[in-house]
């Protein structure tokens, strides 16, 4: 090849790179008007077309000029990147993907669970990979399981990294494989959210199952977030250490979704760009924001405008950071002193270049004891998330009294159920065995005498009384309900129409009858009209048995979300409560239980830091007192978007609480009523082994509008019905509101763990 030809080839390559850089800038800014980038792109394209017609020196001069301009614009853009622009960076087709990481960070890999479009779910990539480090000129290799979202290069089948339920199930399957083989897992999160469909087992159920398993997965786990979209991210995100790219985003909801809710934008209408930018800024989605909030552990620096597919120095850094992070998770379990020394050294290295050599080799295999420690550290880490982002009475005296009370009750219950009860059981067992053996011996002696007596004086057979042990004597319903609670809805003198009137021919219902005698249930078709949560407080539990605790924990506006404080105050004033969850002790026909009730009147029953903390404490109390735990969901709209990722982390946090309670031998029952959607259903509610729905309730992951907008397909009107949830196995039964108490009592008596006080 001649020199001038080589130069021409170089100029072609240079122009192509320039075009990519300009297109990337257009992606970031969302338009081609900024700094006349559009014209610049036109200029580059013209140069590419007339490559061989322009004099070489003129061509290179022109290229230099364009490059200077592009570099100048890049610097300007990088100086002040808005959160909305960061979202654009993450979603750019030039952004690195999981495949780029597998190619450049790991030495070798074998893809599992499918390749390309021949896949269980192409949006989830799984690979067994090896990653090596050099220590004093010697190469050490580690085996890891890599699980992540694969966004692809615009292939439709990749679904932009939105995992379907079976994709998350595939991830779960290989998490278990890694646990069996005892190798660490590296998660890479590149998802705008989970694909919101209710095909078996349902998006929410699968995420909840993943989270539940991850709470006690006995292998070191490290995750890296590039695009962390709410529940989809959590499905593979509850790891021991969470890293995030400096140009990534981690959010409770997509900025588009938040803008549609905040701006009350109608379906199909275009979102105003300013509103979108405003919401992206309010949600605190950037890596710096998340680090401040404590929802991630470390930031991995990317180039100012974010790493792209061919950013090899970044891949080198990522490799180093993943190795270091896994070392940290492992070291913590081995020896805390060694870990501290390592962490200090690591801190000193912060911001420096990636070294060629590692100073030591750390084995990633763990002993049984270390695995226990690993789980303990993970539990502690997640339980602490979001603390300090709710209002709690910090009065020393009050706190002291509370702590003393807690200590006293813990000691009492430990003594009663942990020490005395097993002893009592053992003694009882011995007495039963002795008396059983004694009676057998006595029977042998007395049998011939008794037989002779019966033969001489035959007795007519009498039916024996049936005694049902453990069930208290039930009083007449009239004796119990002389002073029943009647819903204030019944005070209106009018009629209402049952929504099933056209289908089942239901007659109009007189409201005082409907909300009084009929308990809000259509006597013809059984449709359940919504009732306020107070109705359940009064009718579900024994009279005067409800004792609320932690009512002082209050929601606040931790992100300073504009306009939210006013709305929050309004809700506090309107409901007289501090959060959307009420936690209390109660009794059902004498059976004591702990209840967490999410109700709709306060921010639509959404979950934030205060709600998560109250739920965790309820789990703890139920565990201490050996009582069953009931989560009655009057209504929940998901995670509270105004608390950003502080809300999202309540998903793993509360799931950890539930898992700990279940493993301690508790019984956790969830009952859904009215509407239950999104994050809570996809985590600490959905992970319950026993879930029930009240008739006419709706349960699911995303509402019909979100499904329509995401999948482009309409959903049938009964898509989220309790019946469909039962059909796909999400819930175990549908209860009638009028028989709620009886069903709950039966469930408490028949289901449950071994450590409950009445077992």
């Amino acid at each position, binding site marked *: 090849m001649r020199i001038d030809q080589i130069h021409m080839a170089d100029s072609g390559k240079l122009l192509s790179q320039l075009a990519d850089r300009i297109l990337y800038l257009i992606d970031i800014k969302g338009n081609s008007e900024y700094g006349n980038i559009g014209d610049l792109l036109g200029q580059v394209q013209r140069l590419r077309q007339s490559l061989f017609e322009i004099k070489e020196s003129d061509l290179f001069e022109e290229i230099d000029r364009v490059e200077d301009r592009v570099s100048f614009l890049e610097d300007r853009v990088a100086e002040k990147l808005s959160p909305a622009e960061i979202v654009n960076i993450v979603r750019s087709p030039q952004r690195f993907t999981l495949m780029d990481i597998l190619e450049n960070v790991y030495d070798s890999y074998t893809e599992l669970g499918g390749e390309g479009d021949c896949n269980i779910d192409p949006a989830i990539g799984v690979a067994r990979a090896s990653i090596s480090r050099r220590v004093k000129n010697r190469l050490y290799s580690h085996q890891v399981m890599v699980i992540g979202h694969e966004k692809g290069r615009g292939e439709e089948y990749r679904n932009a990294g939105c995992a379907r339920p079976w994709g998350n199930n595939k991830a779960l399957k290989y998490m278990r494989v890694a646990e069996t083989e005892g190798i660490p897992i590296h998660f890479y999160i590149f998802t705008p959210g989970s694909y919101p469909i209710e095909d078996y087992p349902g998006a929410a159920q699968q995420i909840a199952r993943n989270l539940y398993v991850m709470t006690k997965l006995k292998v070191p786990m490290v995750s890296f977030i590039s695009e962390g979209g709410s529940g989809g991210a959590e499905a593979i995100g509850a790891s021991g250490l969470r890293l995030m790219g400096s140009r990534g985003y981690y959010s409770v909801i997509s900025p588009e979704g938040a803008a549609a809710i905040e701006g009350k934008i109608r379906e199909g209408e275009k979102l105003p760009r300013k509103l979108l930018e405003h919401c992206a800024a309010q949600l605190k989605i950037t890596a710096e924001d998340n680090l401040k909030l404590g929802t991630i552990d470390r930031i991995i620096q990317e180039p100012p405008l974010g790493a792209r597919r061919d950013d090899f120095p970044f891949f080198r850094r990522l490799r180093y950071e993943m190795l270091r992070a896994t070392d940290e998770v492992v070291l913590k379990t081995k020896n805390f002193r060694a870990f501290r020394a390592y962490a200090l050294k690591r801190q000193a290295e912060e911001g420096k270049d990636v070294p060629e050599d590692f100073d030591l080799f750390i084995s990633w295999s763990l002993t049984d004891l270390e695995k226990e420690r690993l789980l303990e550290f993970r539990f502690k880490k997640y339980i602490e998330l979001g603390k300090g982002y709710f209002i709690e009475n910090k009065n020393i005296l009050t706190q002291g009294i509370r702590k003393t009370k807690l200590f006293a009750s813990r000691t009492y219950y430990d003594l009663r159920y942990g020490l005395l009860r097993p002893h009592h059981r053992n003694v009882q067992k011995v007495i039963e065995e002795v008396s059983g053996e004694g009676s057998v011996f006595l029977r042998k002696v007395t049998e011939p005498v008794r037989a002779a007596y019966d033969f001489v004086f035959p007795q007519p057979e009498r039916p024996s009384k049936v005694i049902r042990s453990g069930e208290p004597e039930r009083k007449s319903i009239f004796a119990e309900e002389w002073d029943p609670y009647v819903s204030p809805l019944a005070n209106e003198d*009018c*009629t209402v*129409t049952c929504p099933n009137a056209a289908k089942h021919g239901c007659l*109009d219902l007189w409201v005082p009858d409907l909300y009084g005698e009929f308990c809000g249930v259509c006597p013809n078709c059984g449709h359940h009209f919504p009732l306020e949560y107070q109705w359940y407080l009064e009718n579900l539990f024994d009279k005067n048995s409800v004792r609320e605790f932690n009512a002082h924990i209050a929601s606040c506006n931790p992100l300073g979300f504009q306009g939210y404080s006013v709305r929050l105050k309004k809700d506090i004033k309107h409901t007289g409560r501090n959060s959307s969850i009420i936690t209390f002790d109660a009794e059902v026909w004498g059976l004591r239980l702990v209840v967490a009730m999410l109700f709709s009147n306060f921010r639509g029953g959404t979950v934030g830091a205060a709600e998560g903390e109250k739920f965790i404490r309820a789990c703890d109390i139920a565990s201490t007192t050996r009582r069953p735990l009931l989560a009655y969901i009057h209504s929940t709209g998901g995670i509270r978007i105004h608390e950003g990722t502080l809300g999202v982390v309540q998903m793993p946090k509360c799931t950890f609480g539930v898992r700990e309670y279940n493993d301690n031998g508790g019984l956790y029952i969830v009952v859904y009523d009215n509407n239950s959607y999104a994050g809570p259903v996809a985590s600490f509610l959905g992970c319950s082994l026993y879930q029930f729905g009240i008739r006419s309730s709706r349960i699911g992951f995303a509402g019909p509008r979100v499904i329509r907008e995401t999948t482009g397909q*309409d959903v*049938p*009107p009964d898509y989220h019905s309790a019946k469909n949830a039962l059909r796909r196995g999400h819930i175990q039964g549908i209860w009638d509101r009028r028989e709620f108490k009886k069903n709950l009592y039966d469930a408490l008596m028949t289901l449950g763990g071994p450590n409950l006080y009445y077992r």
Partner: protein
Amino acid sequence: MDINLNDLLRRYRSHPFEDYFVETPHTGVVFFKVKEGQTVKGPSGEWLHRPGTLLYTIERERNVKRMTALWSGQISGIRLDIEGRFVEAGEPLFSIRHQLDKEEIIDRILTQVLYIFSAPQRARYFLTPEISARMEKRSKKGVSVEFGEDVLIMSLMKRDTVVSYEGVPGSLYKVYFNSGDMVEQGAPLLGICSPDKLQYVQKVIHRIRTEWEK
């Protein structure tokens, strides 16, 4: 089956409408939400889950019911004299004149002309291999079926039962299901046309499809 197709055709040509009379379902005070001549839409969506145009409200016992259109068409004969007044149940309010399109007219003619063989029970249905082979060889309109002939295979719970045709002999004109579909009990499976009317029916339908404007 003694139907004069010419009369039928003439009737539809001169009056290609179906008038649906809207009456009050019960007593109450009526407020109209439509005007004379206004075009209204019936329920839409894949599951007809989006309600049609709001026609009127009827209030009884402070319960305001919003009544929506069940058919698409044009409002005619609206009784504005009863606007805001208490009326009895079954009071005529207006009619919705629904213009029949070509396919609707064809369907109506066919339901009157054809003998409909319905599903004896809820199951998956297949045509017997003999009928399928005959249909492949000739056009389906030419396949004749006799009384007692095995025409369908009913598949339920992994058991296949042959279903014999019990109706007037004739030509198989229309198959209303896709092979292997789950069909509800009583839903139409086959449409049979008597041989003497076959050609004439085909001609009429061809004319409707090609000559009629809408």
